[in-house]
């Protein structure tokens, strides 16, 4: 299978799902993403990304039980899949490798403006 790459926003959403202590669903993820990034993001963007990640196989989802506070509508809980974990690890690895490849002292050479 062709390997899917993660976009920046997808990576953030995936990380947020991974970092969520409780069961993660749309609203919590949306709030968390906004909080973590400090950006204002529409709910539809988060939903679309979640479903897309599910289609790509990085997330799995499961409908929860009936609820009282949202007109009885069930929540969809998202969890990381094996592929999701691997993808996050891959990214992390690449990043670490690249960070290590930066020659020591290089950052000091760049004068602050």
């Amino acid at each position: 299978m062709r390997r899917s790459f993660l976009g920046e926003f997808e990576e953030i959403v995936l990380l947020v799902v991974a970092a969520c202590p409780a069961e993660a669903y749309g609203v919590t993820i949306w709030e968390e993403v906004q909080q973590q990034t400090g950006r204002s993001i529409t709910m539809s963007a988060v939903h679309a990304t979640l479903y897309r990640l599910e289609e790509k196989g990085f997330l799995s989802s499961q409908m929860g039980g009936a609820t009282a506070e949202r007109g009885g509508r069930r929540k969809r809980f998202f969890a990381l899949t094996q592929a999701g974990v691997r993808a996050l690890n891959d990214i992390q690895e690449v990043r670490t490798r690249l960070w290590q490849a930066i020659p020591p002292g290089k950052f000091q050479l760049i004068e602050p403006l």
Partner: protein
Amino acid sequence: MKPPRWADRLLEIFVAPHLREDVQGDLHEVFYKQLEQNGLVKARRAFIWAVLHYLQPYFFKRKPSDHPKPSHTAMIRNYFQIALRNLERKKSYTLINVSGLALGMACGILIFMLISYHLSFDNFHANADRIYRFVTEQHRETVSYRPNVPNPFGKVFRNDYTFGEKVARIASSNDVLISLKTGGEIRKFKEDAGVAFAETDFFDIFNYPLLQGDFKTVLREPNTAILTERMARKYFGDQNPINQTFHLDNKVQFRITGILKDLPVHTDRKTEIFLSYNTLRQYDEWMASDESWGGMNSAMQCFVRLKPGVSPAQVEEVLPAYVKKYRPTNKNVHHYKLQPLADIHFNPRYGGAISKSNLWVLACIGFFLIVTACINFINLATAQALNRSKEVGVRKVLGSFRGQLFWQFIAETGLITTLAIFLAFVTAWLLLPSVNDWFQVQISLNPLDDWRLALFLPALAVVVTFFAGSYPGLILAGFQPVVALKGKLSQQHIGGFNTRRTLIVGQFAISQALLIGMIVITDQMRYSTQSDLGFNKEAVVMLPIAPDTKPISLKTVKHQLAQIPGVKTVSVCQSAPASNYNVWNTSPQYDNRSEDELFSVSVKAADEQYIPMFDLKLVAGRNLFPADSAREFVVNETFTKKLGLKSPQEVIGKTLSLNKGQTTGPIVGVVGDFHDRSFHEDINAVCIMSASDLYGSYAVKIDGTTVKPTLAALEKTWSDLHPDQLYEYEFLDEHIANFYKTEDLMLRLIQTFAALAVFIGGLGLYGLVSFMAAQKTKEIGIRKVLGSSIGQILWIFGKEFSRLILIAFAVAAPVAYYGMNAWLNHFTFHIDVSVGVFATAIASTFLIAFLTVGFKSMKAAGMNPVKALRSE
């Protein structure tokens, strides 16, 4: 305390079902949170804002189910695919079908355009229903119809009665010379469409808008003119045309005070130069006169817009008073009538371009062509139906309904029709220039510009599709699946053989009738233009005599023309022996008889060269002596016969008096009869005399071997002598051929329609033979096995189509005979319809039929019998 209902509904409708629940739930959850924190207004606004963000394709896309439901187009796509494959497989079948339909529809399109062009004539004037033209019925022994009234009529009607809101006279003059003098240079233009002296109310009645100038002021002063933008550009290029001047026939000068918008093509007014009416007196005194009730000139027309509520009958009631007042004793009794504007274009009696009944005939022909094309299509398609039986069987077994199979075939036909209509449009577009030329019309073929055409094309395609596709569709859909799959279906299940035969007979009857008509018209035309007219018309060039040429300079010009090498003789004359213009008819008074004769005589003024040059045969007496004015006469034999005399010799030396005694002299000679008009008319009594004031042309006999240099020399000499005139010439035989312009058009039309009918009939026959070949496959196989020769088998087909053609001939021949005799009766001198004509027609039909079906029947006869018989 709920989110906005509509936004919620929108979300439910838009978002795909498998995502709907949690998306909606999440949004509601956020809404209630916001409600607590920020209040209702903000929460609702945020909710709506959030919902709007879900309106994107990603959320709309429905989840593919595990058992996909085919989309609605899947089956239709399949129909078209199968149709395309079928068409591709049977290329010749497709070609015949498409070309047949395309040809029929191309004619349909052209005829539609022609009709819609004619029907749109002069329909753009305000209050058109109240606009009328005054016309005259002349009651003598016969009634003749003229589109005009005596010159002063319009003026007195306007003054005497209040019926008319506006009354306008317009006097036109065709073939005029317009000259522009710019600096030292003179530019000359011959305007065939001519000029018109128009009373100012003319532009109130008719809607021809001005681009420059104002109708309150233009055409009021004498010697002013307005012309169309096109004309202005032709004369003055980019210069401002206002206040420029031009001369009319080197006589009257005009100043331009206004520019008209170009006249639309669909108006019967072709004149593009309008002159102030009060200048008419300077140009033609008789036309402008208030007294000229005696004669009429069709150039003088009079239009009226009646007041609302006035009926034409009311007006016509008062008009006879004018006849009593102004023409009390005239034998030629005028009846003045009103002709509605809508009738002008369609009433041939008063010079209308085309009659409504002719338009109907055209419409019927167009309809007939399309119907036959459809019928041929049906024939071919049903003949092909058997080949589709397996497919139909399989489809039925797999659950196709009758309706679906029917629509499948309609889709297939639709494909063919679409292809055909595209081809038809291209064909029509290619033929358009010749159609415009033949019918003297200006049709353009642009569906983007013309909503009628834009509607007609798709409508035609749909109608043809259903008409041609329904019957074969029903046949195909009606197959019994078991029989069809077993291959036991035979042509018996398709039927309709006799209907098809009848159609073929009909098609061939029409094409044979047209063929006979074509042959007869061709023969008559040859007879009219090539038989002996009683004079020699070969190698004679007619040059005009410049207006206002004095008798003295006339002789100079004649002398100079005669000097040119290649010119044999020059005669000055009023007109050629056969001519339809410049003819003066008058009542003669013979010898000492007290009254004028009842018949009229055609006066042909000419000099002494005329009779020898045109080879007119003198049967008694002598030629004229050279003279400038009428001293003596030469008459023709008809003249003596009409006088009731036995021998031409008797008139010699007797006195003849013309024009109430104004021209008198002895008759000195008699010439043999010659055709002085077209073959439509009898030979008139003619008298030839010298009268230099009547001369209109130089007739120049030239040497037939050096035409080009002689023509060039003629032009040079003539132009040098008349620097302010425009040179024109005409060969006499061409002029005579022009007598038969209508017949020429008719011939070309009938040729076209005959070709079409033959082609369509041929297609029909081809369809029938393919049908027969399919039906008789087994029969032919058995016959061959039992020892039939190819010739015998061919005769099965030959017998069939010979019989059909003979029946068709039996129908066509009497109809054509009757029709062509009626047509020939328009000619006083005509050929007889001979047996040879019919023989040629049927022989050519047989030849065409043979060429059409020969190949197909040869193929059927040459087939391997084993193949035909093994399929059992």
